[in-house]
């Protein structure tokens, strides 16, 4: 029986191996390659997506567990061509270097700001996504900028 889910707001289904991680369904079957493979063990966060609005590491999330749920990927974050304030903050702070981890960083930051609209330094320091280029200082700035924008204040 096919697994049915909502993918970036649209119905989708998958008839393959239910143990397949969501990451590889997204990349190889839905052809949404913005979600990246980094470690395969849920450690680095490059594959972070949202399941029902909460951050989830797609490389260790089997397809069977998302049946009936809503999955949002980096491709589904902007609405009608308008960037999410977190995406905009990433551009404003010129965060990406190689950029490979940034989809996961952004999805993680969106999740943080949804739970914690005014994050403390400790809240931000608790984020565990890896960046091999060392963009963390600019990520911190971008999160603070996005937090202000989401609360309707100016940076």
């Amino acid at each position, binding site marked *: 029986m096919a697994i049915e889910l909502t993918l970036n707001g649209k119905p989708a289904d998958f008839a393959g191996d239910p143990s397949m991680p969501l990451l590889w369904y997204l990349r190889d079957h839905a052809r949404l390659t913005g979600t990246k*493979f980094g470690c395969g063990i849920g450690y680095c966060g*490059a594959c972070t997506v949202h399941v029902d609005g909460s951050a989830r590491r797609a490389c260790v999330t089997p397809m069977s567990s998302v049946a009936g749920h809503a999955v949002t990927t980096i491709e589904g974050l902007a609405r009608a061509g308008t960037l999410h304030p977190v*995406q905009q903050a990433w551009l404003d702070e010129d965060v990406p270097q*190689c950029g490979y981890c940034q989809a996961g960083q952004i999805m993680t930051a969106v999740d943080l700001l949804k739970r914690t609209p005014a994050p403390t330094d400790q809240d931000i320091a608790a984020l565990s996504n890896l960046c091999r280029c060392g963009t963390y200082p600019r990520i911190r700035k971008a999160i603070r900028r996005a937090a202000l924008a989401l609360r309707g204040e100016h940076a």
Partner: protein
Amino acid sequence: MSLSRRDFLRVSMSAAGGLAVSLAWPHRAAAEQAMAMKLPPAVSEPLGAFVRIEPDGRIVIGARGCEIGQGVRTSLPMLIAEELDVSWSAVTVEQLDYGLEERGTPPTLVSRYGPQGAGGSTSIRDGFDELRQVGARARWLLLQAAGAEWQVPPERLRTQDAQVIHPDGRKLRYADLARRAATLAAPQGKLPVKEQSAYRVIGQRVRIVDGRDIVTGAAHYGIDAAVPGALTAVIARCPYFDGAVAEVDDSDTRRIPGVRQVLTIEGPRPGASLDRNLAAGVAVLAEDFWSAQRGRQALRIKWTPGPGVQESSSALEQRALAAFEERGKIARQDGDFAAARRSATRVIEHTYIEPFLAHATMEPPNALIDLRGKRALLIASLQSPSGASRMVNAMTGIARSDIAIKLPRSGGGFGRRLANDFVAEAVLVAQKAGAPVKVIWTREDDLQNDFYRPFGVHRLAATLDASGRVNGWSHRVAATARKYRAEDMEDDPDWVGCVDPDGFPAGCVPHYLAEFLRVEFPLARGWWHAPLPTFAAFPVESFLDEIAAASSQDPLDLRLALLGSPRELDYRDHGGPKVHTGRIAGVLREAARRIDYGRKLPPRHGIGVASHFTHGGYAAHAMEVALSGAGELNIVRCLCAADIGEVVNPLGAEAQFMGATVCGISAALNLQITVRDGRVEQANFPDYPLLRMAGAPDVEVFLIDSPFPPVGAGEMGIPPVAPALANAIHAASGRRLRRLPLGPQLKG
């Protein structure tokens, strides 16, 4: 390669009827034949061009380099835009493919775009003159076209914001001149370029051009490549160096839905060159990654261990320490260090140890290859497309001009992708499979099959005369040579990459000795993020602080005294031929000033400084740390001062120094690759713990306003980090750590 009379401009009509401008450099192997080559007729440019000005007003600038996170997709087109005299906001940047093609009779290989690889922080240095000339030449053509249109000598015209302006104020858009310009003969010789004061693009704080693609998930990396019918391959590689596949039972694998083929590939012969794939293995080909990975996990393989099965890091370290009993190869000798030692008032001597390091690019190695008879298509995250082109040619016999290579973004490089072993694997698998193949590595594959930063033990000795001045310096390095089983390094001595014979304080002390003791070990070695400088800086800059402490001198004053008067010294390795002592002193002074060096600090706080000359650029770090009694390290302040000459994109350059500093802290504190029973012990990120957000300090970057020609920015920011940190830890606690990584020793 610099511009010379041998290069020529190619002017042609774009497909949409506009102006297309490219250069063609004679390919290195055929440079002497290139003089006889003829300009092709003006035809459409199906392969792209450096500059395209379309009748609809679009201004498209081609980016030639491999974008690995160093920002060349932004900074190199900026150079063209400056001289083309267009505002940056009007420019669209397009990534160029690897541009090798055959032209003329007899056919000769020409490089359409010049150097396209990424390594050694050379992109800006190579491109600064060349690419400004590209822009200047395209602008020259547009001026000629406008002059013809108005019947005015072009010298009387000027340009601004993609328009040519008549002395009476009339204007013509580049777009309206493009068609005419495309019919003109190219300018001869080098054109004048702008004075720095006239820059409108260079020196601006420009954000990366594909930022929007990155934050929306639309940017393409090698791992995202797809061609119809391609199979995904994962490879179970022999975990033993020079081992082989003894037996494979793939019966369970073949039952997994989606698995299409299982095949064996051979590794290098023991002792042979490591210029192809690194290991023997069993490849599982499937319709998607997950099926291939499940298939791989279901394999039952017996490996034949290679001759290195007994090897371990602890045995290597013992061998390296024992090596100092012998004499090695002398890389540089000034005066007579042995005599200086005999007559010295005081001798200070210490030993430092540096581990193997893996690159751990966030995007694991991968390559997609489609072999179609006499043609091939390669899409991969690369740093050396020319190397990949040569390799595919050697392995398949397909002419290099018929090997199309796409250059998607790379998820990091750091030197890992200067090797193309993963391309070789894709070719081997595709040849056997008879289908297009995309090989994808897992993180475990990556950490265990790398060209690692060499392991080394450094023994440093300094002699002091009666007045406390350093008059002799000996730096002996017992290391696994970086030059290891590599055919293309035959001309270099084997200490290259491990010994920096002309690094500071060479030339600043009368008696100087640099010596290499080669220690054998079967792990592949390669280039790791500022390879030699990173390897050399930790022992040298730590030892300088140790001399200062032992002789009651201030560490900064000691360095400045040794550097002496500002002057140029010979420097043979990459970044030479000269190193300027005044510029080293300049970055040290700036870092010290910025951190308010010498101020009174709270208890358990300390400031450390270090500097290094890297690939033609100069950087110094200053760090203030606090170390609790329990060994908890807090980097209170971390800053870097750098002199990289004229800066093309300060926003990008600051990012490079910030990132390199964080990477440097990561490696200095926590990273090492170790071997036990002939296998790499680390498997995934938990064993190779890159810094996370919590451990990464803010980094203040100060770029010195410098009149010198630009060099890159990608690597200069890493070498001084580890010694600055070790020096700060010593200043805070009195504990001198002489082994990397530092982290495990802090709580010991």
